[in-house]
């Protein structure tokens, strides 16, 4: 998005487009990336409810992976993931490796 000059800004700094923050990809902040191991996933959706960045994709009530455009790599999902029989369904990996 091109920065606007002061003459182009709507008075009162009103944002007219709801949810326009989606144009700002925060995924570039990430230092480590969550990896989903589907075999260990019990579909508890804790990763989805606890994600601060709404970066867990859920379709028809099922977790389907991550949205790396926005995931900041905080790792809450991996820590909260109960996994299956002690094996985590989400693990953090260093970005760029």
């Amino acid at each position: 998005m091109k920065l606007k000059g002061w003459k182009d800004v709507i008075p009162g700094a009103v944002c007219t487009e709801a949810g326009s923050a989606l144009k700002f990809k925060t995924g570039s902040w990430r230092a480590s990336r969550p990896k989903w191991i589907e075999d260990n996933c019990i579909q508890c959706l804790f990763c989805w409810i606890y994600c601060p960045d709404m970066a867990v994709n859920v379709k028809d009530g099922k977790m389907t992976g991550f949205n790396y455009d926005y995931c900041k790599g905080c790792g809450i999902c991996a820590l909260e993931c109960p996994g299956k029989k002690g094996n985590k369904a989400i693990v953090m990996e260093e970005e760029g490796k």
Partner: protein
Amino acid sequence: MATPTGITLKELSKKEGLLTSGHRMCAGCGAPIIVKMVLLAAEGPIIAANATGCLEVSTCISDYTAWKIPWIHNAFENAAATLSGVETMYRSLKKQGKISKDIKFIAFGGDGGTYDIGLQSLSGAMERGHDMLYVCYDNGAYMNTGIQRSSATPFGADTTTCPAGSVIPGKTQNRKNLTKIMAAHNIPYAAQASPSHWMDLVKKVKKALSITGPKFMNILSPCNRGWRSRTDDAIMLSRLGVETCYWPLYEIEDGATKVTFKPKEKKPLVDFLKPQGRFKHLFAPENEWMLKKFQEIVDKEWESLLKSDSGRCDSKPSGKAPGAE
């Protein structure tokens, strides 16, 4: 995850999220998790107001807004007053027949904008009886401007304006109990919640929004920058806050207190303090008295809360996944 009340994550996940990705809160921040849960719990059209704070500056930067609902920011001290005005206008328009929708009003503020700077406007809005829910996300300091102490900062915490060192051992005063202060306005509903116990939080928001009149919710919001902790422990720390009874989950409905979660085993407060760098100095031998005093403060408040409990503990907040023990 079926529950008696029918609230499941599966069902919630089918709802449209009203706070989008692309906001610029820090990685691992508790506040967007709380806002997401509050908005998921609400049904129908919502109008939100925001006090100045992390949430406000990071969710609406210039042309980018992460909100999918009408949202207004005015100043630091007047989120409740601003929303009072919006709510009054809505009632007037409804009376005039110019609007037919049933709209819910929710204000969000951090502890700085709620406990300190916005307390007068919040108190006024509650006293005038506006039909709104005020949600305070309490991270225990002015995190947005660089971790200055607020009246919500816990005893002993190290902040940039009460730095732990050779002169003082962190904050020497106790935090104030805002939930009780709001309840003392004799409003129909005041509650305390934590994002770790998502179902308890969602139930409380649903209950609050079903009541006409002023409502207040105080929600613990971990901040890894200010708490000097890891980016992945927001939920773990908020859970420990509840399990150590530092942050008890309760509601006060029409004057009757109900503790909504009683930990099977009350954990020692140090479990909550240890992972946080802001309490690091409390573990030095010369500050042992502070740990003792802090534990005493928490014990006293918990016991007094239990005494006022009307005894009905029917909510079973979620903490564990099915099959995970």
